């Protein structure tokens, strides 16, 4: 990797100041070090360690809203008994991520801000669209792990398992931008990647995720994914769902899918369709059809269609089980 300065920030303001225009934050380092070692991102002149920032390592439990600090680790989410109780889907999503070793150091902020996992982007010897080249290799070659939806010509999907679950929970990322707190839905957080092949998310240089707020509005939630292997493997498709269930009826349901679009894939019309309904097979299936409508399967990723369909149906029926 290229040489860089290294500094540990003690306050949010100093973190932003230290990072300047060409610095990068480092939290657990799982994603960032790999990017730097393979020269996949423009060389930062400074790495600002944000692990010492105050107030970002807590899980705050409120009546209406929980706040999960950006430095909380994935393992802490997985192990927290209250999360398991209140947001079971979040526990499930955390538990599926990578390996125990990675979960122990991976942070919520880093997980949300991680870069594309597309094997062309990650390859040291291909200059793809996402790296400023003029060709999306995946579109024309091996796209088995790629998106069914995109708003541009890059088909690298969002792979953050937490983002998928947060989307279903209607969570908001609180981002410090130009010393202002900005609230971003998961859709906002990835919207830039939907439009712009060069973007991995909507964060601008210097933006700092401080926490994620989750409304305590949906008492049932679940996350499921299918990978090639049982554990320690990326999702081929993931599906998160959350709702309140009252006498078998869904209320405020939300469904989000990962690994099929540059953003957590959500269809508000499907959420609205499900709202107030009693779930049966036909309803779940109709919702899945709505969610997948307009998908553009490519040569090697068509299998994601039946897979996503099945996961949506299963996630919904698990909510009411």
């Amino acid at each position, binding site marked *: *990797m290229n040489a860089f300065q290294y500094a540990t920030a003690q306050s949010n303001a100093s973190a932003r100041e230290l990072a300047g225009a060409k610095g990068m934050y480092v939290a657990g380092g799982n994603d960032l070090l790999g990017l730097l070692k393979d020269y996949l991102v423009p060389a930062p002149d400074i790495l600002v360690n944000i692990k010492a920032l105050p107030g970002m390592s807590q899980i705050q439990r409120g009546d209406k809203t929980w706040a999960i600090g950006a430095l909380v680790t994935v393992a802490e989410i997985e192990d927290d008994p209250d999360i398991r109780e209140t947001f079971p889907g979040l526990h499930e999503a955390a538990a599926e991520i990578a390996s125990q070793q990675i979960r122990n150091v991976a942070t919520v902020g880093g997980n949300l801000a991680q870069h594309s996992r597309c*094997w*062309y982007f990650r*390859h040291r*010897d*291909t200059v793809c669209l996402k790296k400023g080249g003029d*060709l999306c*290799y995946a*579109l*024309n*070659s*091996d796209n*088995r792990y790629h998106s069914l939806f995109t708003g541009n010509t890059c088909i690298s999907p969002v792979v953050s398992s937490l983002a998928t679950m947060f989307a279903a929970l209607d969570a908001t990322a609180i981002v410090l931008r130009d010393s202002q707190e900005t609230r971003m839905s998961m859709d906002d957080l990835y919207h830039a990647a939907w439009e712009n092949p060069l973007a991995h998310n909507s964060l601008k240089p210097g933006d700092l995720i401080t926490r994620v707020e989750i409304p305590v509005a949906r008492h049932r939630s679940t996350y499921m994914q*299918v990978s*090639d*292997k*049982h*554990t*320690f*493997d*990326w999702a*081929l498709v993931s599906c998160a769902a959350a709702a309140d269930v009252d006498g078998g009826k869904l209320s405020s349901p939300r469904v989000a899918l990962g690994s099929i679009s540059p953003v957590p894939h959500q269809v508000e019309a499907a959420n609205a369709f499900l709202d107030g309904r009693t779930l049966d097979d036909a309803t779940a299936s109709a919702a899945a059809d709505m969610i997948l409508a307009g*998908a*553009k*399967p*490519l*040569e*090697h*990723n*068509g*299998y994601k*269609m*039946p*897979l996503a369909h*099945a*996961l949506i149906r*299963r996630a919904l029926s698990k909510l009411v089980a």
Partner: protein
Amino acid sequence: MSSWPSQTKYIGAETRRIDAPQKVTGQARYSSDIQAPGWLYGMILRSSLPAAKIGGINVDKARQIPGIKAVVTLGDGERTVHFYGEELAAVAGTTKQACLDALRAIEVDATPMPFVVHETDAKKTDSAKVWEGSPNFGGPSTREHGDVDSAFSECAAIIEGFYTTPVQIHNPMETHGNTVSWTDDGVTCWASTQGISSVKDSLSGALQVDQSQVRVITEYMGGGFGAKFNAGVEGILAARLSREAKAPVRMMLTRFDEALAVGNRPSSFQKIKMGALADGTLHAFEMDNYGTAGFAAGGATGGGGSGVELPMPYLYRVPNSRVSQTVVAVNAGSARAFRAPSNPPASYGMESAMDDLAVKLGMDPVEFRLKNDPNPIRQREYAIGVEKFGWKDKYKKPGSSPGIVKTGVGCAGAAWPAGGGTRSTKGEASIYPDGSVEFRLGVQDIGTGTRTVIAVVAAELLGLTPEQIRVRVGDTNFPPGPGSGGSTTCPSVAPTVNDICSNALQQLQTLSGVADARGDNWYAACKKLGVTPLTVHGQWQPGLSESRACGVQFAEVAVDTETGFVTLKKVVAVHDCGLIIDKLTLESQINGGVIMGMGYALYEERVMDDLSGVVLNPNFETYKLPGIADVPDIDVVLINMPERGVIGIGEPATVPTAAAIGNAVANALGVRVSSLPITPAKVLAALGKVPPVASTTT
């Protein structure tokens, strides 16, 4: 003539690895742990293009990087690159980062050339040529017995299938590499190798240094699976760098490198037609197979097939057969021997066809095999396996398992033609007046438990315990032993140790006057040696080992028909390998073989990219290997056959696993996924659930 004792205490029992404490405490020094005084890091610059004309390589800037002590290039002047990852130059320096920086500072004048990375494309007449001006494949090699065409007309049932297997990468836990010190006194190489003697020979030849001046040491190493017999380009580069830098150079490849240039198992694309008579007797077999062994396999080099050609119709007696095979070159790294070369793909193709034909005949797949497999040992093993696995209860009509998650079962047989001893194996032992004893053999322990085998045999024959036997291996200064390949190590080493022991007992008797120095008399007899230790030699003797192990495996799977996800639930592996030396290390070999076979069946595949020519998955994130959560319940059943002598097991253990799993999946679904690895994507496609491509892109 030498023989094995009929009553044994250690042979055939369970002995824990004698080096287990060293391994679990980290005291065992693997080749990648070696830190020779003053050592430097070595690293290789590889081609970032799959095919190119290299006009020249300028290393001036690399030499300027602080900490860089040597830079060498491969080939002077113009040359052609044939695959992504081909070695171009190498650097040695005091830190890893200095080396990485130096690699980036090397300027390569490369002109890209057309390339082809997929076998099926390389076969087309208008394909890019791997070797300029020469076709990508030679004429097929064809074998024919009987009259195939009229035999098919006599068959009651005929199936046709197209069964394919991917290129599999060895991926041993320890990567390829070594530390080499080359001074005026000669060359010392600490190698991660399965053949210290072959590394010695290859270094001596490549460097033009007398064999007497080359010493190769492999105390502990982390696996090879057939890909680590020679010094390799990396060994020779390390030596040249060491010469230039006047310091030892440690050149361990990275996981990335492993995917490119140090071997793989060739692919296979097997078009099979097979027919049987009404009573289930196989009658006609026809196969057209092609596969690639990488860039060196083309018509231009006339060889380098490394296992593309499959021994078909494998285990079965078919009176009429025609087998036609083509080795295709592509712009990708070369194949090397890989655990039972040719056999796992042969097993997958043939055993898949067997099940498909059994279904068509309405026969039970085991019955069908028993009818056509002439080998009496496998017949016995099927009988045992059927009981142990509960086959009769578990086998149901294909696709008849109810529900969304369907279970299925399958079986397959294994053969390994080799696995006998290497006649030239030698060894020695020193017996000291205090009764301590050390065995030295110029063989290497590649993780299979060779040290333990030596200790078990010596303890048995000397009447001592395995802990009392000190074993040293992995040094070419010891009497020469075989390379650890072909499942030959155990049948080479065990008879040699037997011979050393009988020589030792004879000489001890002469020198000490003690008629039988074994067991309780050992210390008294040794004491009589006075002050001079006794050194005895021995060599491999006939009559103590054999070849040709068999085996059968049964697999049970659960397949989720909505997600395509396959769970391997159980494997029963019934194997023989003659006289069992140590049950624990033997079972460990079989467990490892099954797990590797499972990876071949469900996860592993080198993915080449058409557009860029690179290997797309040069890491364990996307080159998927079984993890412990994937591994099923493995039930190992051993048949001890002391009358056959010692036979190797490493290879047969991995041969039938993928075929058995593939058959189990087909049994569960009622349709076959006829291409490995069996991923959720392929299962859903086989079930007809994948919609057609919506938009074609350019």
